[in-house]
């Protein structure tokens, strides 16, 4: 494979190659080259032999072809019940087929597999809840992504994304200096409104180590400020870290397992260096899934746990409200119809279904919270998960996928949707932009800021 190509089996490891790939507007050249990318069949089969064992092999074998997974998949439902969208079919026709043929597949097949893996599945794992045999097709689809990535058949934005993590340990070109600087900036901007506001950096043995999503630094620094304000109001002993502050992982969406390991290890290093009692992440679903749920395994941690106890932001908020560290002014509670998005990555896939509803009970005046249907671990993907939101090639499919969530929201009659997850937030913003149903949407932080009581000593003097 020539060094000069943009589309190949090498992961992006340097800033230079990253910039080269970014220059290729929309991946035009990249996708063109992909049309003639060879499949390394030996590599493919040997990888499968080494990494595809009982669990997946058995899943593929004992699939009873019963079709009960069909109705569980929102992509199946939203695409007019197209049979080729049945989860079992999607995985059997790709991964199942690769294994049947012992890796002897061609470029055209891999294109079809790429389309299936990234445009026909968001790895929401809902199908796993509906299969009598306990087959989680979302897990297999993620495994397939890994195979495709290693072969170079991965969407442009995700090849870049995985490269970002390898080069910057963050999903965007945000350096450690950028991060700390932006925090200082936010402290300056808000400290007059919240006396004493500051961002402790690299404090050892704090109660809380707070990790974030790089795009907050780049585009939404208010989120950082709000997080600091809330920790401050709650009187928490917290800190940020100057290295290993990024919780997200586009590498996970890309199937670049090596980059996943590099990424989570940068965060675990920070944990081991600063020894906080616990790590709390920002409002992001896949960041939590990557760093807290799956991460320990990429890092080879046998107990499946990170070096310190980890909590999702919603867990902290619930605790703070429960323990009275944050007190909401009852007059400022939400008094309009509001609903809640269940982020797949920490509700279905990490059991936090009750926590978010506990938060609602504090934030919303009685009678105004309307749950979606289905909800909790049975809720549907926002439509943008697994990287779907960012892939230009599949924007049409993604927009179609948003309809499921749109209709769920419409049925609740809510005017406001609370979405404590960056991807869900984006998807709901996009669905409003696309379908104009007249809703507003928000993270928890901006809402909490407006309704919590600020302690005397923090209020500005004049």
């Amino acid at each position, binding site marked *: 494979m020539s060094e000069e190509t943009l589309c190949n089996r090498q992961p992006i490891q340097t800033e230079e190659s990253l910039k080269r790939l970014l220059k290729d507007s929309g991946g035009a050249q990249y996708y063109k080259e992909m049309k003639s990318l060879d499949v390394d069949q030996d590599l493919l089969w040997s990888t499968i032999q080494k*990494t595809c*064992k*009982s*669990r997946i*092999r*058995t*899943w593929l*074998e*004992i*699939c*009873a*072809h*019963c*079709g*009960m997974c*069909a*109705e*569980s998949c929102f992509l*199946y439902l939203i695409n007019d*019940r197209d*049979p*080729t969208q*049945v989860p*079992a*079919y999607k995985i*059997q026709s790709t991964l199942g087929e690769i294994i049947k043929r012992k890796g002897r597949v061609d470029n055209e097949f891999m294109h079809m597999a790429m389309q299936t893996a990234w445009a026909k599945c968001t790895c929401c794992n809902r199908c*796993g*809840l*509906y*299969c*009598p*045999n*306990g*087959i*989680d097709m979302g897990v297999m689809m993620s495994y397939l992504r890994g195979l495709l990535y290693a072969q170079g058949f991965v969407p442009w934005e995700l090849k870049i994304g995985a490269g970002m993590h390898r080069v910057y340990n963050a999903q965007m070109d945000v350096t450690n200096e950028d991060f700390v600087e932006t925090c200082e900036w936010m402290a300056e901007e808000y400290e007059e409104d919240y006396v004493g506001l500051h961002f402790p950096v690299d404090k050892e043995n704090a109660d809380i180590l707070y990790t974030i999503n790089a795009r907050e630094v780049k585009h939404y620094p208010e989120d950082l400020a709000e997080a600091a304000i809330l920790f401050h109001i709650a009187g928490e002993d917290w800190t940020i870290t100057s290295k290993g502050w990024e919780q997200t992982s586009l590498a996970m969406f890309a199937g670049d397992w090596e980059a996943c390991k590099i990424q989570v290890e940068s965060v675990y290093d920070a944990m081991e260096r600063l020894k906080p009692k616990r790590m709390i992440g920002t409002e992001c679903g896949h960041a939590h899934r990557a760093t807290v*749920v*799956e991460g*320990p*395994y990429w890092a*080879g941690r*046998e*107990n*499946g*746990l990170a070096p310190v106890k980890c909590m999702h932001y919603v867990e902290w908020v619930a605790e703070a409200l429960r323990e009275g560290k944050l007190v909401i002014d009852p007059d400022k509670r939400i008094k309009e119809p509001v609903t809640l998005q269940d982020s797949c990555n920490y509700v*279905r*896939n*990490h*059991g*936090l*279904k*009750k926590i978010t509803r506990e938060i609602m009970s504090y934030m919303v005046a009685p009678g105004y919270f309307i749950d979606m249907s*289905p909800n*909790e*671990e*049975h809720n549907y993907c926002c439509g943008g998960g697994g990287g779907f939101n960012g892939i230009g090639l599949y924007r049409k499919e993604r927009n179609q996928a948003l309809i499921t969530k749109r209709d769920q929201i419409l049925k609740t009659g809510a005017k406001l949707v609370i979405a404590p997850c960056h991807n869900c937030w984006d998807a709901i913003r996009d669905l409003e932009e696309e379908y104009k149903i007249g809703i507003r949407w928000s993270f928890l932080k901006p809402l909490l800021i407006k309704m919590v009581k600020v302690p005397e000593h923090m209020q500005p003097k004049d």
Partner: protein
Amino acid sequence: MQDILTGPMIWLSLCVFVFGMLARIVLYIRGLDWKLDRVAYKAHPKAGMKGAARSIIYWLLPFATTSWRKQPVMTVAFFVFHLGAILVPLFLLAHNMILKDMVFLSSPITLNMCVADLLSWGVIVSGIVLILRRISLPEVRILTTTNDYFILFLALAPFVTGLLARYQVGEYHFWYTMHILFGELFLLLAPFTKLSHIALFFMSRAQLGMDFGIKRGGMKQGVSMAW
């Protein structure tokens, strides 16, 4: 021919079935890998067992999971089919008499005639429903292969022939022999076909249960997967 079928073949087919299934179970467990599967099986045994148990039990009860409730026709067909397919071979009086002769052991409980008939007819009817499902529903049709029909045939043939013999339709001897033949065929082929789900259903469900029980939320206080 009948001597072979009722003699050594019964032994052979039963042994192949039992040891074959055991082998599948052993191979399955040995092929699990905490790192590749990303489930810390050994590190959290209590959470793992709780998850596994819930995953199996809820799915063994009709309408106990959201999925079962969403597909009432399928659920009824599934459970009626499996109820008969499991209980009749194991607890039919005739089978147990043969078993007693062979190994001097048999089940203390046997089905009374009416129940056995009911269950067997249940298997046939639900079997037909399952076949019709495969033919008529697009989401099932796209998945269905010849192999699926073969499996259904393998499972239904002993019941069809059994009932034909029991009601003494046509030549009793012929159907009786066919029944034994198909029964043994079922046992011989089970470990090597999708019929291995007899054992692997439990393995797979346990595995997923452990996954959710250990990694994906089961260890959050007071929370369990609401199947």
